[in-house]
Structures are given as structure tokens and as C-alpha cells.
């Protein structure tokens, strides 16, 4: 203990350097964690979050009572998480390998630059672009195919629409990470494989893909904690927050955002966010445990 104190005093300059960032994290990340206690309270604005009285599990009972809304948004959240992670990882890896295999390096670089651009456009702006395509009267898709589909009231189609928008937005950027891993593969391995008579596909399957496994594991692991969280802009902005689409587009995060604006029953919302946070932490710890058993070097902590 004395050693620790001495060490800390010796490193007082480093402590001072840490302090501002530590305080920002404390006030804007840690205090809100304590705010989850709201799930067990009957919130009253006048009394504040700490002064409001406890009401036990009432909020959760309410959650179970109105379980249709809760189940709908939870399944939507998980549904989109799974679609995005499966389709996204597949496309990221495929694109990275494709660009890596391309002989025309310059063209590859230029194309990649263009593919990355969509990630820098905010969903508040993307919303207008999607509207230009899907607007019922004058939208480009309806115009082009002579149809008159009312896109903004066809809930069933939005799973596909949002997946396309999300992939358009993120795949170019996501592939960069995998490309950097690919650049690290020793070219001698490929040459040796070529001498042994392996063709391109065999090289990809036996050399390229296995070398990406650590990266894929880490990215999946990091994302699994976010299974209950979504890219709020995609579900709130791009759908224009349209009520008729909720059955297939309402996720927990967009529901909470709506609830805050409507000032609706915070108890129910608090119980939902509590559930959201707990599931996230349980999943990431569980996933990390599994990875630690299977491939310890890829685990997160």
C-alpha cells in the first residue's frame, strides 16, 4: 500500500494528466450508470432522480403488462442487430478481399475512397436522400418502375430498406479495418502456396480467411455488447419516425427517444433501459468468456 502511494506521488504528473479525462468520464458516463436506479423508482421531476421514492418492481410489472410493445421493440432490435452483423461482416470481408486481390491498385484506392464517403453523411441528411428515392409521388423508384407503392406505410418492406441503407452507409468504411489486417499477411506465404499449385480461391480460403479470424472475433465481441443498442438515426430519422412503420422499425433506442420527447411514463422507459444495459453487459462478459476458452489470445479482457 505504501509502495502504491509512493509510486502515485512519484507519478503525480501523470495523475494530473489523467484527471480531466477521468472527470469527463465520471460525469457523463459513470453518473448516468447510477441513474439506472430509476428503474426501481417512481420518478418525480420535482424530487429529481435521487429524491424520487422507490417503488420496488412496479416498473417491471408495468413492462410485463404492456408486453406487446416491449416484445416488438426488443425483437426488432435483435433482428436488426443480427441482420446487420451477419450481412455487414460478410460484405466487409468480401469487399476487403476483393480490393486486396485487385491488380489495378490505383483504381482500387479511388473506388475505396468513394465507398467510404457515405459513412460521413449524417442520418439527418440521409433521410432526405432516402425520401427522394421512396417518396410516393415523384420518388425516383416509383417513377422509374411506374409503380405507386406507398413506401412510408409498408412496414414489411423496411427491414430490407434499412438493411440496404445501413450497408450503403457502413460497408466501405468497415472494410478498411479488414484491409489493414490483409496488408499484414506475409507475401511469401502466398508465393509458397502458388508454387505448391494452389489457385486463387484456395489461397483465399486457406490463407486469407484464417488470417482475418482474430479481427472478426474482436469486432464481433465488441459488437455483442451493443446487441440491445441501435444506430438510432437509422431508425428514427431514415424512417421519418413514421408510426405506421413501428411494427418493423421501432427499436429500443428510438422508442426511448420518442418517450423522452413525449414525456411519457418514465417508469416503463427506465425499466426498458435497465433491461437494455444489463443484457448488454451480460452478453459481452459471456461472449468474452467463451472466446477466452476457445482462443484466449483474441479475448477482449
Amino acid at each position: 500500500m505504501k509502495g502504491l502511494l509512493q509510486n502515485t506521488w512519484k507519478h503525480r504528473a501523470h495523475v494530473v494528466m489523467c484527471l480531466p479525462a477521468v472527470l469527463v468520464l465520471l460525469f457523463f458516463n459513470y453518473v448516468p450508470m447510477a441513474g439506472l436506479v430509476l428503474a426501481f423508482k417512481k420518478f418525480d421531476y420535482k424530487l429529481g432522480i435521487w429524491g424520487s421514492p422507490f417503488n420496488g418492481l412496479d416498473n417491471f410489472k408495468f413492462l410485463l403488462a404492456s408486453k406487446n410493445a416491449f416484445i416488438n421493440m426488443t425483437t426488432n432490435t435483435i433482428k436488426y442487430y443480427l441482420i446487420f452483423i451477419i450481412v455487414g461482416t460478410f460484405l466487409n470481408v468480401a469487399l476487403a478481399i476483393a480490393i486486396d486481390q485487385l491488380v489495378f491498385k490505383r483504381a482500387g484506392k479511388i473506388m475505396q475512397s468513394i465507398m467510404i464517403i457515405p459513412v460521413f453523411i449524417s442520418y439527418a441528411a440521409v433521410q432526405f436522400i432516402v425520401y427522394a428515392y421512396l417518396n410516393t409521388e415523384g420518388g425516383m423508384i416509383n417513377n422509374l418502375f411506374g409503380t405507386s407503392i406507398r413506401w412510408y406505410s409498408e412496414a414489411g418492406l423496411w427491414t430490407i430498406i434499412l438493411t440496404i441503407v445501413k450497408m450503403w452507409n457502413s460497408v466501405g468504411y468497415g472494410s478498411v479495418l479488414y484491409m489493414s489486417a490483409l496488408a499484414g499477411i506475409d507475401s511469401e506465404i502466398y508465393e509458397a502456396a502458388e508454387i505448391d499449385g494452389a489457385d486463387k480461391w484456395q489461397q483465399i480460403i486457406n490463407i486469407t480467411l484464417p488470417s482475418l479470424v482474430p479481427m472478426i472475433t474482436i469486432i464481433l465481441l465488441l459488437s455483442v455488447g451493443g446487441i440491445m443498442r441501435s444506430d438510432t438515426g437509422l431508425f428514427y430519422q431514415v424512417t421519418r419516425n413514421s408510426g405506421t412503420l413501428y411494427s418493423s422499425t421501432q427499436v429500443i433506442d428510438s422508442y426511448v427517444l420518442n418517450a423522452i420527447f413525449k414525456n411519457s411514463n418514465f417508469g416503463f422507459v427506465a425499466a426498458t433501459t435497465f433491461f437494455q444495459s444489463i443484457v448488454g453487459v451480460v452478453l459481452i462478459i459471456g461472449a468474452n468468456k467463451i472466446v477466452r476458452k476457445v482462443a484466449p489470445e483474441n479475448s477482449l479482457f
Partner: protein
Amino acid sequence: MDTVKKVEIMDSVKKTKPEIRKKSRKKVGVGQYILTSLLAAYTVFCALPIILVFVSAFTDEKTLVTKGFSYFPAEFSLDGFNVVLRYGKQLIVSYGVTIGITTAGTLLGLLLMSMFAFALSRKDFRLRKILSIYLMIPMIFQGGQLASYIIFTSNYHMKDSIWLLILPLSVTTMNVIILRTYIQTSIPDELMDSARIDGAGEYRAFFQIAFPLMKPACAAVGFMMATTYWNDWQNALLYIDSNSKKPLQLLLINIQKSIETLLNSRNIPSTALAAMQGSIPQYSATMATVITVIGPIMIAYPFFQKYFIKGLTVGSVKG
């Protein structure tokens, strides 16, 4: 410390970077051309929506309303931009706010996170283990939107405060890890040791030696942070009320809302509505606004591209 040695060490840093694999191929096969066309097709898919924004911003509003969105409009016009200029005052204010929070947030965040990362990279600093855990927890466990909202507004009384657009996004776990990994892999310990032998205190060692050497990592993280600040609409929508603090993204959202109310609130026949819309540029004006919002990032992006690709590479090494 003599500069020659510093240059030498920096050179050795440069040399340690992974070299991009060179491939020697005898001839270009058919497969390569198929691959190129597939990639080109995907590139077009990525670019088309952005092109549409530009084309429709310059399309005549009447054409947009009667004939719909098209890549080859019958009539061009600058009316959209004229409308943007008409609500010019708010646009300038919003530009100011967005530029302000982007610069302030990025610079502040880079400074705080670099210092934090620097301290965490000192191997003999015993508190660093606890501090690393402290850093990791927010990535795994969050309070969520509702708790943050209530605490920021009712406990901190920060509703409508510009600081809520800056501080919550300024320190993020992932960025600190990227910076720390960069320090550990690219700034040799010997360099810091020799600085200390030469009598530099920790602050000088950081500000005069480590921080300048972190430029590539800072450029990468900084650009990503800047886009996050620039594109942040959610905090603005939740917390900002007054017009003088409204960033660009919130302005975009407000425009959409006002168009919607305009369209929903009137019970007029659709022909009359179309005629009326033709006289008030909406679609072209919105697209023109979208251009003013996404334009600066598009312009800045090519300059930072090489940095952030490198930065992502560095960050991918597990800390």
C-alpha cells in the same frame, strides 16, 4: 536532446511500419476484369445517392414536383440555393455553432485523451491498471439515453447548454485505446527516457516530445471525432432549444418537420397543393441545405483519408 538522434529514432519508427505487400503477377486475367467491374458497380451504388443530392439541388422546383426526382432533370435552376440564402441568418448562426462545437470538441477531446493515453502508457505507473479498467467499463456498461437525459437536465441543469454538445462526446474509450496503442508501438521508450535524462519534466516530455510525435494518430482520431461532432443530431435534438445554439443537423431536422406540417395541415386538392409547392421551393431547397451540411466534410475528407486509414490500422491492435 540533440536533433540528430531524434531524427534517427523517428526514421526507425517509420521503418517499422508494415510494408504493403507487393504482388508480382505475370499477366492480368479475365477474373481481374470481372472483379474490377463488380467493384466499379458497387462504387456507383455508393455514389449515386450523393449525386442525386447535387442534381436535385440544382433542379427546378416545379420540375421536381410534377416530374419527380431524376438524374436528368428537364430544367435546372438555382432557386434552391436562393431559398437557402433567404433563411441565411439562421444558416450562418448554425454554421457557426457547428464549426464551434466541432473544433472545440475535437481539440479538447484530443488533448484530454492524449494526456490520458500518455499516462496509461507509462509502464511503471502503478495506478494505470485501475485507470485502464475505469476506461474500459463505459464501453461495456452504459446508463442509457433516459438516465443521461434526466441527469444532464435535472441534476446538472444543462438543458440548452452548448457544453452538452461538446463534453459527452469528447472522451471515448476506443479513441483512448487507439492513442495509447500508438504511443506504445510508435514512440520508443528510449526517447522518453533520454528526454528525462536531459532533465525534461513529465509535462515537457509530453507536450514537447510525445504529443508532436502523435500527429498521425491525432489526425486520424481527430478526423473521426470531427465527423462525429459535425453529424451529431441526437444531443442537439434532445437538449438544444434556442435558435442561437442550433447546429446544422438540428436545422435540417427542423426543415423536414416544417415541410411535413405544411403538407399535413392543409386540406387542399392535390393539384392545388402541387401548384402551391411549385411556388415555394422545398425539395430543391432541402437538397441545397443538405449540400451545405455535408459539403465541408466531403471537402475535408480527401486530406485526412490516409491518416484515418492508418489510425484505424493502429487501433486494431489490441491494447
